[in-house]
């Protein structure tokens, strides 16, 4: 296998055994990016010279760390000191943060090398990466299809072997859904398990950082690095961080798996439910206990999400006012125009739509009917999960209702586009950990299996995912980077 094809831990091993060096790895990665990214369009910014220089430095005098000398890439809503951070928005096209996000600092502290910044739907609002203000990304399995979103660049880059792993963020499915579409592993930890500090907020109570990797074991390793309390982040939780890789084994006898009937209806494609049912049988074969469960309020999750998400977004987006940084319309001759002209020029249509939706939902006279009601729904969804988790270890469901759709297919139909999140949104509403792993192909396109865990039970989640992965070889399937 070529260096760029290796998983994170394979690369670490190669380096440790001195079969290669950091420069060779970085060169292989950059060559791969240069070879395929015209097609995939995963990267918004390449940190080429700095990355090579850093790798050279490492080879001269290696440093210690769990991912020492290994390239990584970030969704472009992670602030990186000295490296442009755009959120795929005209608003921040030339914004260079003076600080690194906490998770970026953690990756640096373990010796990782930043290779570039990855495409997303503008400000992480979207499910296809078509809503990037710069260009859409493409699915490596079928370049005419979307890689999903909002972390489409992060998933596509890993799937296309352009990077061994990437960090991303998940507000309503933005890690799991593109991971499913691209046939890679996408992990969203429990809300509060990792720090949000330095990641540009979309909807603060739902946003959670996570990781996209080529296999489950890599996801466990990266989670071990990024998890933990951050004194700069008030919603991060003070809890010990286990070595998540230590819990990975294939003994899942007696593991209680619930599969919610609602997640196998709701307009979920028959080929997807078929694939999932096969996966469940696999689990049963391995000694797990499989049982249908119910999450009765599931159908209200999506509408509630599209109130809470935009409500928080409408407030979070206020800071982009053209005054201190970012795009500014210099033709304005008064302060009100400065605000509105700058925002008019800086934000794309979906960001504007969500700002308007959210502003409306929080307006006096509508607050109780929309925002407050949505919060109540959120509590009911939480209760649904709590009830199931009182007698089950994990919940297994499809990650998405369909496989990757064609670029342009949903751009005029907002509601259909929003429906993509239907199976992932409830997990964010409840703040639970979730992972999407490949569980087969449907018409040649990857299908994702979502495993949902109890709060802070990432260990169980990863173990269940790992056991499945070890018993199958779906994670080893590689895309052809062509058009199907």
């Amino acid at each position, binding site marked *: 296998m070529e260096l760029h094809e290796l998983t994170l831990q394979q690369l670490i091993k190669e380096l440790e055994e001195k079969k290669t060096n950091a420069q060779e790895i970085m060169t292989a990665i950059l060559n791969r990016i240069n070879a395929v990214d015209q097609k995939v369009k995963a990267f918004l910014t390449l940190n080429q010279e700095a990355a090579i220089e850093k790798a050279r430095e490492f080879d001269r005098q290696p440093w210690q760390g769990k991912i020492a000398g290994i390239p990584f890439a970030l969704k472009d809503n992670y602030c990186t000191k000295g490296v442009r951070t755009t959120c795929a928005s005209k608003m921040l096209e030339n914004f260079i943060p003076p600080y690194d*996000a906490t998770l970026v600092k953690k990756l640096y502290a373990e010796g990782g090398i930043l290779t570039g910044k990855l495409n997303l739907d503008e400000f992480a609002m979207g499910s296809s990466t078509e809503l990037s203000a710069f260009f859409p990304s493409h699915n490596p399995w079928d370049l005419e299809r979307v890689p999903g979103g909002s972390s489409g660049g992060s998933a596509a880059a890993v799937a296309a072997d352009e990077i061994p792993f990437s960090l991303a963020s998940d507000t309503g499915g933005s890690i799991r859904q593109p991971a499913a579409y691209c046939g890679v592993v996408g992990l969203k930890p429990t809300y509060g398990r990792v720090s*949000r500090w330095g990641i540009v907020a979309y909807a603060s109570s739902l946003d959670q950082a996570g990781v996209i990797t080529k296999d489950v074991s890599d996801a466990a390793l990266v989670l071990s690095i990024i998890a933990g309390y951050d004194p700069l982040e008030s*919603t991060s939780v003070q809890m010990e961080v286990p070595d998540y890789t230590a819990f990975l084994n294939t003994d899942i006898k007696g593991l209680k798996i619930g599969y919610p009937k609602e997640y196998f209806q709701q307009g979920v494609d028959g080929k997807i439910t078929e694939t999932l049912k096969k996966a469940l049988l696999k689990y049963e074969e391995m000694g797990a206990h499989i049982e249908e469960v119910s999450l009765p309020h599931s159908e209200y999750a999506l509408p509630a999400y599209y109130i809470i998400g935009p*409500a928080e977004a409408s407030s979070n987006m206020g*800071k982009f006012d053209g*005054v201190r940084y970012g795009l500014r319309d210099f033709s304005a001759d*008064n302060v009100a125009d400065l605000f509105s002209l700058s925002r008019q020029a800086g934000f794309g249509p979906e960001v504007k739509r969500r700002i308007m939706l959210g*502003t409306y939902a929080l307006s006096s006279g509508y607050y109780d009917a929309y925002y407050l009601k949505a919060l109540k729904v959120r509590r009911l969804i939480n209760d649904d999960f709590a009830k199931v988790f009182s007698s089950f270890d994990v919940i297994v469901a499809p990650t998405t209702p369909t496989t990757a759709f064609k670029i342009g297919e949903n751009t005029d139909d907002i509601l259909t586009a929003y429906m993509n999140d239907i199976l992932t949104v409830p997990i964010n509403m409840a703040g639970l950990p979730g992972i999407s792993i490949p569980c087969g192909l449907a018409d040649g396109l990857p299908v994702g299996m979502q495993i949902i865990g109890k709060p802070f039970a990432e260990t169980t989640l990863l173990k269940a995912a790992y056991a499945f992965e070890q018993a199958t070889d779906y994670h080893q399937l590689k895309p052809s980077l062509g058009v199907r």
Partner: protein
Amino acid sequence: MSNEFETVVGLEVHVELKTNTKIFCACKTAFGAEPNTQVCPICSGFPGMLPVLNKKVVELAIKTGLAINAEIASYCKFDRKNYFYPDLPNAYQISQFALPICTNGYLDIDVNGSQKRIRINRAHMEEDAGKLVHDGTITTTAFSLVDLNRTGVPLLEIVSEPDMRSAQEARAYLEKLRSMLLFAQVSDARMEEGSIRCDANVSVRRKGEEKLGVRAEIKNLNSFKAMEKAIEYEAKRQMEAIEDGETLIQETRTWDDEKGVTRSMRNKEEAHDYRYYPDPDLPPIQIDAAWIEEIKATLPEMPDAAKQRLQDQFGLPEYDAAIITTSPHSLSFFDQCVAVFPEAKTVSNWMMGELSRMLNQNNLEIQQCKITPAMLADLLKLIADGTISGKMAKSVFEKMFDSGNSAAQIIEEQGMVQISDEDTLRKIIAEIIDNNPVVVADYRSGKEKARGFLVGQVMKATKGQANPNSVNKILTELLTKEGD
């Protein structure tokens, strides 16, 4: 006519809490620093930045709550108040809307010799906004500069019930509140530096009417005097408007101190919809009884208790006790002074007389004064033992005030010791009697005025250092003797 009306006033007072650092970041809060030298990415609203609550702010808020007899919430939280303005980097102010930290307090004020209770509805924590520097108004200025030093300075907004019935009562309340803040050591409470700021809600109604009139909120009240004048003006304006048959509207008005008028800023329809909602970046605050007790134990003697003590322990009149207890510095000055010089009424007279006059003249506060309590006590001792006269003492006091030198030093330098030695005085007086036969004759023929002239001559001859009691005694003695 207007005596059929009564004025109804409620005050909203913003108190800057005395912390070293801002409420949600580590920036300093020092007053008067160069613009934008006390800012960081957090308080200037950079992407991805998150707030962390300064615990000291909560502590001072609790302390203030205890000082104003309020209930301290065991559970409270922060909300976002959304609006656009260049001095508000996040386009929302973090404040407390639904669940404030303090509720149901009160302060007792003196009104024409009797006590009146002013209820306090609530007190809530929030962050201050920045400052705009420009010519004229924001709509007419060519450009406006933003100073974010103040952004994130912790405030406590204390909202009274509409329990005051005149500008004088409002002033008494604000003064009382200020003294509570000073005693509790929670704020510098300097109106001129903006560390307390006050908005007044003013309405009028016919006497006997229970329903409140339509209120106007008056802003820009930068001094006690401005507040009094603005309330008086506004009440009169409203009464006249009603008598002219006009319908008042609920509105926000600004006080123009130069012209002495209030002007409409915006009415209820134009009022902002702040779209308050819970800040998802800050977890709710839990306050347990033990913490409250701990803080209560740090509260020093408060003005009401101190006032009672001065009356009980030192027999001071209520008036004196009230004035001395307006600030903790003045109370401590008094206490230290009487510890050395126990004639409390004398100390009080000097504090309310000479000391207060000199402080006002020099625009100083008592804690900035060069005269220490011990120095004043020494001066008072020198008067009591007859070393200097009361009149001399006033001049010595002024010199002490300016130079910071002790009374003894000044008396010695200026040769100001009082002449009480009777032989010396008798000699001087005898000589004056000899030299002024006409005056002496006038006196003996019953012209009392003539005696005053003779005393004056003695003082002139002794450069004012003669002990007046001795002079009178000897003069009587000599004039009577010679008349025999």
